[in-house]
């Protein structure tokens, strides 16, 4: 259930530590032997914005984050933070907070000492340090775990301490490398909302890498879908979902049906109904229409040209799987009340709703 968010631009109104700065990655290239991890990646992050990089493994999203952090060198391209070119600046001078997927915390230090680490390096006087550490642990709601070690905490707690540690130094940018991937499903959902809440409160520009599309859509201001070292699309979660620019994005984000249709300029004919086409669609001739389950209406109809295969009750909604007389599989969303009214073998009529969809040439 993608949340809609508008890109935030007004950071001046935000109070609290860590004002965000703008981040620009320009035309980054990075190859490992014959593998191109980054292939001309260009990305702009506005001050205080939360951008998620989403994609399958190997798409280069982690490489991009690590180049921004300075942990890896790009073969060519520029990294700018707050208007300054920091491409040649070593990691320790970049003033960025980082949370890793696993093994984030120093195992021989308590939570308090972990959070204090960056402050000690900056020679912050001890009184101010203690204050700041308490503030940060309070922010992540782990004040009573301050004297515990990593192995005494759950995965979720460890990541929260890691977040506190990263934010303690008031970084210009916050970098999160799949911080939730190693956690249980339930903890993942709770923690991602926490992270977003904290980020909004603190206002730091944030880059968040994940392979879980639901996660990215739920927390980010904008999501960049990456493939083979470059961005396929960078847009708000809503736009990414409702107006995918390429078939890859349409497939990767949410469920998609691929149904045969005929493209005619700015619309296509699917199952006898006209469906408007998104920009970037193929314009003429036979095509595959990438249409979401909730954009297909299902009605019981003895004369219908599709047959129900399975019906699933998903709690707040329902899903119906049918096959058309022409042999195509269709997944449609139905009301949870309606689930009980359909049985496998029933004849139904499928009618696409007039939501814009992407069409691709059938060769693809």
């Amino acid at each position, binding site marked *: 259930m993608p949340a809609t968010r508008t890109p935030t631009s007004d950071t001046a109104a935000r109070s609290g530590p860590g004002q965000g700065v703008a981040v620009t990655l320009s035309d980054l290239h990075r190859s490992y032997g014959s593998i191109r991890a980054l292939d001309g990646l260009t990305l702009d992050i506005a001050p205080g914005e939360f951008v998620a990089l989403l994609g399958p493994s190997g798409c280069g999203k982690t490489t991009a984050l690590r180049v921004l952090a300075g*942990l890896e060198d790009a073969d060519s391209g520029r990294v700018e933070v707050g208007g300054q070119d920091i491409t040649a600046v070593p990691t320790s001078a970049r003033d960025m907070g980082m949370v890793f997927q696993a*093994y984030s915390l120093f195992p021989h230090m308590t939570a308090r000492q972990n959070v204090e680490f960056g402050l000690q390096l900056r020679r912050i006087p001890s009184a101010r340090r203690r204050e700041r550490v308490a503030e940060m642990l309070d922010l992540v709601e782990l004040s009573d775990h301050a004297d515990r070690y990593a192995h005494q905490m759950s995965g979720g707690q460890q990541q929260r301490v890691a977040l506190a540690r990263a934010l303690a130094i008031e970084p210009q940018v916050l970098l999160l490398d799949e911080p939730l991937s190693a956690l249980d499903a339930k903890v993942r959902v709770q923690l991602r909302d926490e992270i977003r809440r904290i980020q909004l409160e603190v206002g730091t520009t944030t880059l968040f890498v994940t392979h879980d599309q639901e996660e990215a859509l739920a927390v980010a201001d904008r999501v960049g879908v990456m493939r083979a070292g470059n961005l396929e699309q960078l847009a708000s979660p809503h736009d990414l979902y409702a107006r995918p620019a390429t078939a890859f994005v349409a497939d990767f984000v949410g469920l998609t049906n691929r149904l045969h249709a005929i493209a005619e300029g700015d619309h296509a004919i699917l199952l006898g109904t006209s469906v408007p086409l998104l920009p970037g669609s193929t314009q003429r001739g036979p095509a595959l229409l990438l249409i979401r389950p909730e954009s297909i209406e299902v009605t019981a109809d003895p004369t219908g040209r599709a047959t129900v295969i399975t019906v699933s009750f998903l709690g707040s909604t329902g899903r119906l799987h049918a096959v058309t007389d022409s042999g195509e599989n269709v997944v449609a969303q139905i009301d949870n009340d309606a689930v009980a009214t359909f049985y496998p073998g029933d004849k139904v009529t499928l009618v696409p709703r007039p939501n814009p969809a992407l069409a691709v040439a059938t060769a693809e």
Partner: protein
Amino acid sequence: MAEPPSTLASTGRKPVGALLGVVPFFAYTAIFLAIPTLIVVVGAFLDGSGRPTLGNLSALAQPQIVSAFVHSTVLSAVTALLGAVFGALLTYAVATARAGGLLRRLVTSLCGVLAQFGGVTLAFAFIATFSAQGFLTVWLMKYGIDLASTTWLYDWDKGLMLVYTYFQIPLMLIVFLPAVEGLRPQWREAAESLGGSTWNYWRHVAGPILAPSFIGATLLLFTNAFSAYATAAALISQGSPIIPLQIGGTLSSEVILGQENVGKAMALGMVAIVAVVMTLYVVLERRTSKWLGS
């Protein structure tokens, strides 16, 4: 000889029946491990006629025995430290190599072999190198460096020390490598991103994390050197400057009347020292596994 538990245990689920299956093992270890240990421990407090006495323990205060204990301790401590420092360097060098790569596999398996390499073979190898006709001695003679003028090779505090490092360094690698490999790259990266330099990382993160393992490994090296007999026996033909040789001496030479069981007292002393060090090692090891396991 051990009897397979076939017929004994197939009879019942009775605990007694099951216990019979381990009788061979316990009987064997009782005869060849428990009883000898008891003989040493008890015998240390008995005199030649089997009467209880503390005479053996007080005999330990004899100057040659005290100095043997001191020499053994010094020898073990020095070679443990040398082995630990150079071994740790080697371990770090190997750990930075690509996992599964040729260098790492080669060095690790060579060390596995060299750590077992001791005793007569090792002594002879060093004789071939450093003795009066040894390769290195002869070679250095050409440059005016005379190694043959003294019998340094056969001194416990010179030659023997050098020989011991030969198996201490590989042992260090074997014992310490898992700890070094346990250092997660994320810790270094986190330290860097928080503003730490390489020095900061080693001083505040890697150093403290590795310290218990390092100390533990050094302790292990200590007991290893302390217990060694064969190398010294093959190298040193005159005198018994270290404890293992003293103990060996009580078995092979004539014993002064009233001092028959001093050897056992020495052995007991040796076991006590080794046991204390090993306990410390186990304690340290348990602590690190908690950290590095997380």
